[in-house]
């Protein structure tokens, strides 16, 4: 193997790290020390998909030498239009391993350690070893988990315990990148309502009065499958399953004179597919890695703290400081206010938390300071608290009372103050 002279290879990067600029800190010590710091910084990449592939390449070509990557997924054919480290022959293999091996082979001298699994498999000791964590995820739930984990890790006595989190996300021609300094700046949870879930179609529409082709698909997937094939777990990657749902939806469409059910739409609805293209991923991934480089090397100020991007009409970005909320359930010290109708039942309220932009909790359990309102686990406690589901909120809590909500997807409790409408 031919040896490559690092001084020659990193000519441009080293120049940027060996001269100050108009925005660099006056005390910044540029030169060999900064370069050494950068090259020894251990970075964790969460996700080896559309953003992750780009991020790994970008980090390797920004001089980072010790990179770790976590992803639980395997490669699918629909990844190949943007996840450029994967080939047809890689389909079915774990993303983290294939991506790591490819970048290691291409950029000699970088070490990339893959982990095939969930971020939840790892504990604080694991996350503590990294200098910066960078996320390229498509799941809000995983972002919230790592966000709350990193915030819980902060120990004011130990500056090393504060791990900057740089997060990217895309949808079609749009995306955003953000820098989070746990406990010091606005966190994922503070910004939760900026990423509201799409409102779900009411069940009665799906069951009795469909109007759109999507309603027919939801019916086939949520109701018909349960009736006809309830013993088989539905697998959205199984073409036969999708075809069955598609045909059932077509029939329902015919029955109600609703046109427009297609196979592509069926897949989109049941898998909740978000359009994704290489170019948007390139923009957002590079934006996040650029921030990581600036944080690690102090060679320019880093993003404070949010850049949104929209590419449908020219090139539009908006860079601003998202607000740190004192009533953020994760990084704030006050309970978050939530307007509720005192006449709804606890059961309906619990159901609504899945969709409320400020909560987005799918399986919540909750208690007040005095009593447990509803607890999903263990079964005895579930049974004990189940009757509460039928009661109205007004009979369980007082106006302005604080509740603590837990959800199996997260390690922490969320605090809400319920204000009656």
């Amino acid at each position, binding site marked *: 193997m031919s040896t490559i002279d690092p001084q020659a290879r990193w000519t441009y990067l080293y120049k940027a790290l060996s001269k100050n600029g108009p925005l660099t800190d006056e005390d910044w010590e540029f030169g060999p020390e900064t370069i050494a710091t950068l090259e020894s910084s251990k970075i964790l990449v969460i996700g080896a998909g559309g953003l992750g592939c780009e991020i790994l390449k*970008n980090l390797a070509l920004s001089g980072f030498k010790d990179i770790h990557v976590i992803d639980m997924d395997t490669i699918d054919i629909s990844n190949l239009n943007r996840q450029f480290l994967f080939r047809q022959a890689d389909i079915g293999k774990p993303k983290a391993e294939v991506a790591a091996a490819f970048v290691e082979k291409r950029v000699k001298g970088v070490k990339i350690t893959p982990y095939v699994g969930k971020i939840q498999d790892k504990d604080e000791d694991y996350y503590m070893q990294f200098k910066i964590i960078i996320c390229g995820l498509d799941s809000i739930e995983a972002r919230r988990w790592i966000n709350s984990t990193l915030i819980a890790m902060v120990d004011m006595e130990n500056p090393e315990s504060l791990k900057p989190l740089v997060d990217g996300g895309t949808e079609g021609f749009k995306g955003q990148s953000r820098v989070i300094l746990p406990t010091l700046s606005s966190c994922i949870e503070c910004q939760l309502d900026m990423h509201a879930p799409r409102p779900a179609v009411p069940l009665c529409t799906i069951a009795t009065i469909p109007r759109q082709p999507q309603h027919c698909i939801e019916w086939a997937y949520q109701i018909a499958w349960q009736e006809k094939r309830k013993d088989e777990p539905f697998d959205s990657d199984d073409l036969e399953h999708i075809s069955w749902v598609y045909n059932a939806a077509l029939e329902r469409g015919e029955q109600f004179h609703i046109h427009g059910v297609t196979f592509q739409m069926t897949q989109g609805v049941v898998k909740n597919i978000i359009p994704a*293209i290489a*170019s948007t991923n390139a923009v957002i991934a590079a934006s996040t890695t650029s921030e990581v480089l600036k944080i690690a090397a102090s060679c320019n100020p880093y993003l404070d703290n949010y850049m949104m991007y929209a590419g449908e009409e*020219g090139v539009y970005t908006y860079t601003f400081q998202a607000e740190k909320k004192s009533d953020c359930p994760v990084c704030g010290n006050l309970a978050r206010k939530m307007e509720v109708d005192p006449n709804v039942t606890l059961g309906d309220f619990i159901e609504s938390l899945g969709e409320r932009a400020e909560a987005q909790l799918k399986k919540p359990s909750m208690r007040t300071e005095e009593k447990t309102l509803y607890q999903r686990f263990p079964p005895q406690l579930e049974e004990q608290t189940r009757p509460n589901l039928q009661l109205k909120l007004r009979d369980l809590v007082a106006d302005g009372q604080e509740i603590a909500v837990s959800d199996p997807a997260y390690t922490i409790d969320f605090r809400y103050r319920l204000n009656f409408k």
Partner: protein
Amino acid sequence: MADAFPAVLTGPSSKERRYDRQLRLWAATGQQALEDSRVLLVNSDGTFGPQSTGVAGVAGVEALKNLVLPGIGGITIVDPATVTEVDLGVNFFLEAESLGKSRAEETCRLLRELNPDVQGYAYSKPVSQLLQDPNFLAQHKLVIISGPTKRSTLQAVCQEAKNLGIPVLYTHSVGFYSMFSLQLPAEFPIVETHPDPESTQDLRLLNPWPELIAAGTALGDLSSMDDHQHGHVPYILLLLHFIEQWKQTHAGKPPSNYKEKTEFREFVRSQARTNTPEGGEENFDEAVGAVMKTISPFELRSSIREIFAMDQCQQLKPDSPDFWIIASAIHKFCEENKGLLPLPGSLPDMKAQSADYVSLQNIYKAKARRDVDEVTATVRQLETQIGRTAPIPEREIEVFCKNAADIKVVRGRHIPLLSEDSDAATTKTIRGGFALDDRLVAIYVAFEILDAVVSEVQSIADTENGGDQLRLPNIEDEELWTKHTDRILKVLARDTGTDIPPEQKDILEDAMWELRRTEGGELHNISALTGGLVAQEALKVLTQQYVPLDNTCVFDGARSQTAMYRL
């Protein structure tokens, strides 16, 4: 009959599966346009000084990556440079084994690995030699040029591209900054601009046609309905019904200003039944929510009026592009239909019984169909008048009618090169930016100075070819920087007759300071980001969907910001 074929056969092809996530954005028509396109990257054309191979061109390479992945037909890379160690620190599509080989060929080879369906061509020679073949440029649908490069080359490529109607993207990525401009043909029309569906609903509640009026009237007396019926009347019919009631007490006029609309909204709200188990009615909530947005007479946007007034629309020729023939037919439709455009025909979802919704939807669809037929008839007349033989496909007319309110024509401009020839509008935009402490406009000017410096270095190198290499100037030559900075500042002072004040010059000094940190070198992240933006523009231009940049974008990687300028 339904079981004549196994269900799985209705599934997508492997190509549809590979491209699924992008087909949801630009559909099969956009994909076809991409697959029919070959893109040229002109990646370097000279040195930055002795012992330099000049621009690394990674922004352009990354842009190609983002076009190869979604399945562009082909790529051509023109780059006379050979691979050096410096390249291996910035360009992912080179490997250790590439050292000393042709950069064009190596990059092309590694890019093609990403997608076996893409053709690749590499030329290790200066673009000026290739331009001697008059057919060379014409094989491409788009040209990307990596800057900074010498003016003579840039202008030669841009001029020929302009003559052939081929768009050009001129890109720069240096240190923490990047900048690119798009040169489009004089008129670049777009039908499928993909506006936000929320903002573009066209329900014509104040311009109803007889069938819609009849559907509103057929509602009859709302008070005689039972709760179930009352709670399922589609909100569009509710609004039509209440507008009629309102007119009876308002001299036959619908609510027409903010105050009246607010009043009308409260009136609608008051008509909802509240003694229901839910304490209200969802369809009434929807009606209340829609008042401000939908109770307005149809109005033709000024941008559409401008398109109708353009010569291309007024004076059709036998070779007029389809866009202008259809636009002209729609103009006629508009004149004959009291200023209305063809109805798009789509209906948002709303609380309603299935059958009621479907029949309302059919009223919209049928009207849209009739409008398309009317426009099509005019298109056929126009085709005969201008002597065109191949008829415009029906589908194209239909898509145009559906998007008629949101079509756009971008008036293409040249790649802006700040010089004594720059127009007053350009210098005015830049001066305006300086006055407002716009740091990004200063980055643009700094790039223009860098371009001028590099152009001079490369021109001297060309004339001195084979002479004493070490005596050549390089990109760090202070005299060149001072000379071109002074010259550009004069250009900016030309139209106002006043110099840029010293405090405004400081932002230019800062921009040049940051720009020169890497001595013309690229940082991979900044080039990767720029390659993403450039590819985004390329996709929009090639698919003729969405709205391209008009015409210059600057990215400041130090401040994490972008800006757009029309220069």
